[in-house]
């Protein structure tokens, strides 16, 4: 029994380390490299000592370019996740507190929005504001808040009925006190979990939109634009233009997914019913 516990503790934590390494690389590498100038005369060179990952279509060093792309994709994805979480949390909390027919109506709306095909709506909205980063953030944020709203509302309803909250109320605590000390921590806990779980999905969405040409400007580096350009370069035999950005995208998504399930496992909230 004890060996099981020990081995479990040993392996937990690696997703966060990997994630931290990725984020540090995404920030540090472009910072260290400084401003890059395109030089078409050294475009599409295979990996070598001077350029460990080769060069891309514009002549940029691919390693630095991928790090820049990672940075932009992560930033955009983080903004999307924050927007979706804040929106979802507000609506979820509001709906739970309002109760009654307002709650039922809001839940219907949540179901409706949840049912929409996310990518289709995302493409349509992003295409209408061609390349505007705010539009991309809005299109992803506005289609992903329902999941957060549902989770937050369910949690809030469960906690409000919990034994200790009722005890608090009986003991004469004010509404504000209860809210601040019992409800808010639980809600934020769930919201954070939801946000972490949204991140890989947001990265996926942004890179898909950029790949299809409705995301960020094609001269900017983002994992999606890099892969969209790679689609052309692989036919010329430049396999590194696909492998390096795709590899970092998959690695990032995997780390996020692992970290997210870790967070969910660790922060399994109290069921709300002590007795």
């Amino acid at each position, binding site marked *: 029994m004890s060996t099981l516990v020990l081995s479990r503790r040993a392996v937990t934590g690696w997703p966060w380390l990997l994630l931290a390494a990725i984020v540090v690389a995404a920030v540090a590498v472009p910072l260290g490299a400084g401003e890059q100038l395109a030089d078409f005369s050294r475009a599409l060179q295979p990996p070598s000592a001077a350029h460990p990952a080769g060069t891309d279509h514009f002549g940029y060093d691919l390693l630095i370019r991928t790090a820049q792309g990672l940075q932009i994709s992560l930033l955009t994805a983080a903004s999307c996740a924050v927007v979706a979480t804040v929106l979802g949390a507000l609506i979820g909390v509001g709906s739970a507190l309002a109760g009654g027919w307002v709650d039922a109506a809001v839940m219907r709306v949540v179901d409706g929005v949840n*049912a*929409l*095909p996310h990518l289709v*709506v995302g493409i349509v909205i992003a295409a*209408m504001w061609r390349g505007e980063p705010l539009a991309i953030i809005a299109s992803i944020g506005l289609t992903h808040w329902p999941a957060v709203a549902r989770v937050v509302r369910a949690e809030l309803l469960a906690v409000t009925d919990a034994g200790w909250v009722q005890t608090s109320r009986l003991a004469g605590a004010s509404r504000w006190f209860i809210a601040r000390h019992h409800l808010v921590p639980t809600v934020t806990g769930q919201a954070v979990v939801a946000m972490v779980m949204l991140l890989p999905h947001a990265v996926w969405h942004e890179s*898909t939109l950029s790949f299809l040409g409705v995301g960020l400007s094609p001269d900017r580096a983002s994992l999606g634009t890099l892969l969209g350009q790679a689609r052309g370069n692989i036919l010329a035999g430049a396999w590194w233009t696909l492998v390096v950005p795709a590899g970092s*995208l998959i690695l990032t998504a*995997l780390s996020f*997914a692992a970290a997210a399930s870790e967070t969910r496992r660790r922060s399994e909230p109290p069921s709300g019913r002590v007795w």
Partner: protein
Amino acid sequence: MVATERMDALTTEAPGWRRDRLRPAARLLGIRVLIAVPVTLAVSVGMFGVAALSPLDPLAAYLGDNYQFATQSQREAMRAAYDLDQPWWEAWWHWLTAALQGDLGWSSTQSLPVSTVLAERMPFTLGLSGTALLLGAVIALVLGCVAGMRGGTVDRLCNSFAVAFAAVPPFVMSLALVTVFAVGLRWFPTSGARPPGGDHTGAGLLTYSVLPLSALVVSQIPWLLLATRAAVLEARDSDAVRAVRARGVHGWPLLRAHIAPVSVLPTLALIGTRLPELIAGAAIVETVFGWPGVAAVLVDAAVALDFSLSAALTVGAALAVLLGSAFSDAAAVALDPRIGLRA
């Protein structure tokens, strides 16, 4: 009812079963279909409203590069000629009334009536996506059952495979397939649905569909695999099944008679909720592989601001997803007595 009796009831067709399970399922379906109508209408209103807010000028889409060479007065004339200067609610109303009479408008990117575009391309999308869903479901269920029942290395392999491939976006998968199989090994063609100049043939379609089908199937498998495996594990560890195992039933008979009805069938029923992901996957795969389906045109229409086609496709997709999940939930209610969904 004791669990085993309940399961026996599921597997034998007692007349009471039909009435008990089908009525709530039908009721749920009915309610959801009714709800789908106003939601779809809301989606269409939202689309026109958002388009009105957008800074883009549909005239640019009509003219393409020639937008540059038109003078101001010509643009005004074109705007008037194409009815582009009416308020968005008017445009929506016209669209709705025409659509209800069967006229979905004219597609500027395809130079065809929207209904013709849909009619010509829908069979390709339904064929590819339907086959992908079916194949993916079969593979995922089989693997999920094997993983859940056997455990050990097989289970770990399936698990890691599912988790790894869940992290790969469909467009990366498609690019990788093109690089390896079409460009590298030259086993399969890179795009299209028929050899240029030829007609659509059965054998041709089969060859051309291998790569897009593989990309779509691989994108569908992970979730279904994990869900099936989890359901099978949960069923296997449940008291009822433990009792059956204690009686000496193992392997295939155990799976077929006792585990599958409570795990596999309900998971299968939830396939309908995978429609949004399937549509997204189809849009990407059809674009990369040039498959002449409806999802590929969705991207083109959105980018080119072909509003009639874009509106028809978005509203259609929303409707399909709503109905799909409605059928799916109804099927789940009909199949699994433990699910108590009301609406």
